[in-house]
Structure formats: C-alpha cells, structure tokens
C-alpha cells in the first residue's frame, strides 16, 4: 500500500499508468524526432544531413514497429485493443492512435520503398534463388530503373516526406494532447503539452541520431563528417533551448498565477519529484548538455574533431536521459498527486520482472536497434556511392581528422 501524505481520494492512490506509458511517448518521440532529421535532407534539401538521412528513416521505421507494444502490454484487456481501430470514439485523443499510427506507418513504408527501390532492384538482379525472389517481391516486381522512373521516385520521396513530417508530428503530438486535455489533472492540463512533447521528441530524435551516426560510422569504418555532426549539434541545441524554455514556462506560470493547483504542484516538485525533475531533468539533463552544446556551436571554429565528437556524444547521452525523465515526470508525477489537491502518494516504483516492469522497458528500448541491424542487412542505412567515380559527401573511405 502506498503511503499518503495529506488526504487523497480513496481511488486516487493507485498509479494505473505505469512505466509502459512512460515508454510509449519515449519511443514515439524517437519516431517523430528521427523523421524530422530525415526530412531535413529529403524535404528541406540540407546536404549536410545526407549521411544520416537513410539511417534516420530506418530508425523511425524500427521504433515505429515497436511503439505499439508498450500500449498492448499495459491494457487491461489487450485482446480488445483493436477496438480502437474498429469503433474509435473520436472525442477521445487516444482514439486517434489507430488512424495516426496506421497512416504514418503507410507513409514511412512508402517512403522507404521509394528511397530504396533502385537498390532493391539492383539487389534482385545481383542475387539468385530465394534472395532474388525476396528482393523482387520487395520491389513489387517492378524493374524500371530508368532516369525518368528514378526522377519520379525522388519526387515521390519529397511528397511523402512533406506528408510524413506533419504525420510524425501528429503521431507524437497527440500523445501530448492526451495529457494536455485532462482538465482534472493540473499537472497535465495545459495547451503547451502537445508542443512540449513534440519539441522534446525532436531533441530525443536528434540526440539518438548523433549517437547512432557515431556508432554505425565507426562500426562500418566510414568517415564521421564534421559538417553533419556540427549541424546536428546546432539543431539539437536550438530544440533543447525551446523545449526547456517551454517546460520551465509552464511551471513559472503556475507559480506566478498561484491558483489552487500550485498548492499541490509545489510540494510535488519539491518532494516526490525532487530527484527526477530538479536533479535529472533540469540540471543533469538540460543545463549540462546546454553548456556542452553551446561550446560545440559557438566555438565551432576552434574545436578539434575529437572534442566536437566527444562533446556531442556526451550531450546526446544526457539528453536521452533528460527526455526519459521528462516523460517520467509528466506521466508518473501527474498520478502522484491526488485530485483532492490535498495529498501526495509515495513514489511509484516499478519492479524488475513484472509485465510492465523495468526489464520489459529495457527490452522495448533495445528491440528497435536489433530491428535496425536487420534493416541494415536487408537495405543498407548508407547511400551507396554514385557510379562514375563522383566523390559524394560521406563516401570517402578513409579520411584524416576523425577521432
């Protein structure tokens, strides 16, 4: 039985939304954030993101594949989960899951298909036996690799990214709306919630891509492009500043207006969430990466590549923690306070081996990386060099100056 300080409504003392509901926005945050990175190249044409464009697309797809699992594990009646798609009640933000998830899944699958179609066909032509059949099926038995067809592919990719970017944002933004629309809970109820969730997703996606780029480039013995790392760091820094500004703004506004909800939110922040909010989310998770990235962005010209890589890797790791603790503080924090506004319950502690426990969460986080490895084996995460000896960005096999 949890301990209550003050008075809580008798039914309020149970934390129904567990670690799984923390993991779900964490995972869809990576989906949206990676797609934002890939759109920087495929839609906005920023050449410095070309080395990570396919990696980001693959990451988005792999996290999307796993994203529905925490929800299924959480449902009291998971075998009825499909009802959300059959009879969605459209006044509910949660009902949007069925449509948004399916729609975005289709968009990403289509985009992957158009991006990789040429390589799939070439792989089909190169292979024999089962592998040939597999790649041919993957290409939907089309074999047209003429320049006109490829040109249509490029245009399709641009259009799909243009549709996919707001879809990815909606797929993660609606999760923020799920919380923001609950007038019963003052810690959740704010119009800023969808925006904070989405910007936080961009932070997590870019941070993850920075780490994945470093890891995959070294594993596959490719060069780590200075411009790519620098641009990723810059965008990460900007998104971090906006995200933390909004997160703090919400609390400052609550404290300033000093309405009845502040009476319970102030003790919540200073007692139950002291470690996870003040120490983890704000100081370790936001302030330190802000300083690290400020060095990378503002002192770009003076930095050795090794320092740039180290600082961005450190900042990204801390930001992955920051985004997780932000999700934790929103989801769990909101359930620690009672709707009576007179009581807080003791901290929620997930167990290691339960259905919605710590081990499950770790496995859910690792699974997309395994899928990404499979993705790379089937469809490479790196764009192949153009024929005819043109040296394209990111394809230099060995280069000095990398750590």
């Amino acid at each position: 039985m949890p301990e209550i300080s003050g008075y809580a409504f008798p039914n309020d003392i149970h934390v129904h939304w567990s670690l799984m509901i923390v993991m779900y926005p964490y995972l869809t945050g990576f989906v949206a954030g990676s797609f934002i990175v890939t759109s920087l190249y495929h839609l906005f044409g920023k050449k410095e993101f070309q080395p990570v464009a396919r990696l980001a697309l693959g990451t988005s797809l792999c996290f999307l594949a796993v994203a529905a699992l925490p929800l299924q594990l959480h449902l009291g009646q998971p075998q009825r989960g499909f009802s959300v798609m059959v009879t969605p009640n459209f006044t509910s933000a949660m009902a949007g899951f069925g449509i948004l998830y399916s729609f975005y899944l289709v968009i990403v699958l289509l985009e992957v298909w158009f991006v990789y179609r040429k390589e799939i066909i070439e792989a089909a032509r190169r292979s024999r036996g089962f592998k040939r059949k597999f790649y041919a099926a993957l290409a939907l038995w089309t074999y047209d690799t003429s320049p006109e067809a490829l040109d249509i592919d490029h245009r399709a990719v641009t259009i799909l990214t243009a549709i996919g970017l707001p879809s990815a944002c909606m797929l993660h933004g609606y999760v923020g709306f799920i919380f923001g629309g609950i007038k019963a809970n003052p810690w959740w109820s704010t119009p800023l919630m969808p925006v904070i969730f989405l910007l936080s997703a961009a932070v997590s996606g870019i941070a993850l891509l920075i780490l994945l780029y470093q890891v995959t480039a070294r594993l596959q013995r490719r060069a780590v492009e200075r411009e790519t790392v620098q641009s990723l760091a810059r965008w990460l820094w900007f998104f971090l500043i906006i995200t933390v500004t909004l997160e703090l703004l919400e609390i400052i506004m609550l404290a300033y207006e000093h309405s009845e909800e502040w009476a319970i939110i102030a003790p919540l922040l200073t007692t139950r969430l002291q470690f996870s909010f003040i120490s983890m989310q704000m100081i370790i998770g936001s302030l330190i990466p802000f300083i690290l990235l400020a060095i990378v962005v503002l002192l770009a010209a003076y930095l050795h590549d090794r320092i740039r890589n180290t600082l961005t890797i450190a900042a990204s790791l801390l930001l992955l923690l920051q985004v997780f603790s932000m999700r934790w503080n929103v989801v769990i924090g909101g359930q620690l306070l009672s709707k009576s506004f007179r009581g807080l319950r003791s901290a929620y502690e997930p167990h290691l081996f339960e259905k919605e426990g710590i081990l499950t969460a770790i496995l859910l986080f690792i699974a997309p990386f395994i899928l990404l490895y499979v993705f790379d084996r089937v469809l490479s995460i790196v764009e192949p060099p153009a024929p005819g000896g043109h040296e394209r960005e990111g394809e230099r096999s060995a280069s000095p100056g990398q750590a």
Partner: protein
Amino acid sequence: MDDNRSTRRDFLSNAITLGSGAVVFLSGTSLAAGEEHPAERYDWEAHRYAYVIDTTKCIGCGSCVRACRAENEVPDGYFRTWVERYVLSAESSHVDSPNGGLDGFPPMQAGFAPTKSFFVPKMCNHCKETPCIQVCPVGASYRTRDGVVLVDGQRCIGCGYCVQACPYGSRFLSPKTHTAEKCTWCYHRVTKGMKPACVEVCPTATRLFGDMKREDDPVRRILEHERVAVMQPHLLTEPQCFYLGLDKEVR
C-alpha cells in the same frame, strides 16, 4: 503493347470504381447488424435520475459504503462510494477517509482545535458533460437516456484514460476484471423501481435518489427550491449529484 496497356488501365479504373463504392457502402454499416432491440418493459425515456446528499445529516456510519460493497461486489481497496470527514477551524482543515469510511470513523486528534466538522459522502456524479465519456477511446463509457453513466464491461479495453480524466476520483480499474468500474447508481435496482443500495440503507436520510420526471418527487422539489452545490463546478462537468450544506473546503 498498346492494347495491353489500355486493358490494364481499364481494369484498374474499374477496380477503383468498384472499390470506392464498396468502401463508401461498407464504412457506414455493420454487416453483423442485428434486428431491432427487443422492447424493454422499462422505458428509459420516462426517467431522468438525480441524487441529493444532505451533508447536514450524515453521521459517518459507513452503512452506505458497506451496502455498496456487498451489492456490487466491489473489490477490496477500491470504492464505488466513500465518505469523507472534514474537521475545520477558521484557519486550519483536516480531511480523512479511513478505508473510505467502510468501518465508520474512529475518534481523532486533528492537531488544532476544530470548530466545525461534517461528513461528505461521495460517488460518481453521473455528470451531464462528462470528461470520462469524452476520453474513452472505444466508446465503452456512455450515458443512458435516463441519466446514468455506465461502463460496458465487455468493450472496455482497460486503458485507464477515464480513470485519469475523472476530476472526482470516482473511477478505478478493477483488479478482477481489468476494466474500468464505478458507481452505477445501482442500475440493476433502479430499473426495477428500487433505490440504489446506499440510499436504501442510509439511516438518516442523508442520501436521496429521485426522478426529475416525476411530479411529486422529493429530490426534484429540493433541486427546485433549495440552495444546492456541486463538486468542482468550475470544470463545468454538470454533475447530477447535488449537495446541501457544503463548505468552501470541500472539493
């Protein structure tokens, strides 16, 4: 080559026409639609229920909590109705609800000298503009025509969104059925002309259940002539549980 292409194009266009027709037709219907719902002896259009709680009369005996638990097989540790005690002075306040008031209330020391105290029974307010129905993703939560908010235990997926959305803490996820549950105003009793179990056993006439569509209904008379309050009115959920004798400290 040209013949093949036009045949393929014709096939595609025919398929698309047929397909979209099927989509339009089927999207609106349910292929498994049954016959008309068999006529009920109970006509839900003839009633509109409301509940009044007179907190000046409650003695905190907890009979209502016990009766509800027995009548509705409520799991331990969860409450479809509960009673709160408010012990107040001009500056301080203390609220408690030991086990929801199930075994009554023990004597207590508030840590200050109380000048007024009272009990407030609570349950689902069966609001007209409920946040809980609004957020149910599958339409398992609904409001009947006679004004009772119910949960379809066979469609509820146990997501817990309604539990989070209720401002009054009246819902919970049952550990037995893993679906959402709450006070139903004993719908299985009121449809037979009986009163909810909590109203039936209340020894001091604190709890009153009535029908706004009945001419001489005492609850209707109270709502028409007495000064009543509801919980958290600023949220505009339009609760149908009305309280007499409330204090500013009650939320």
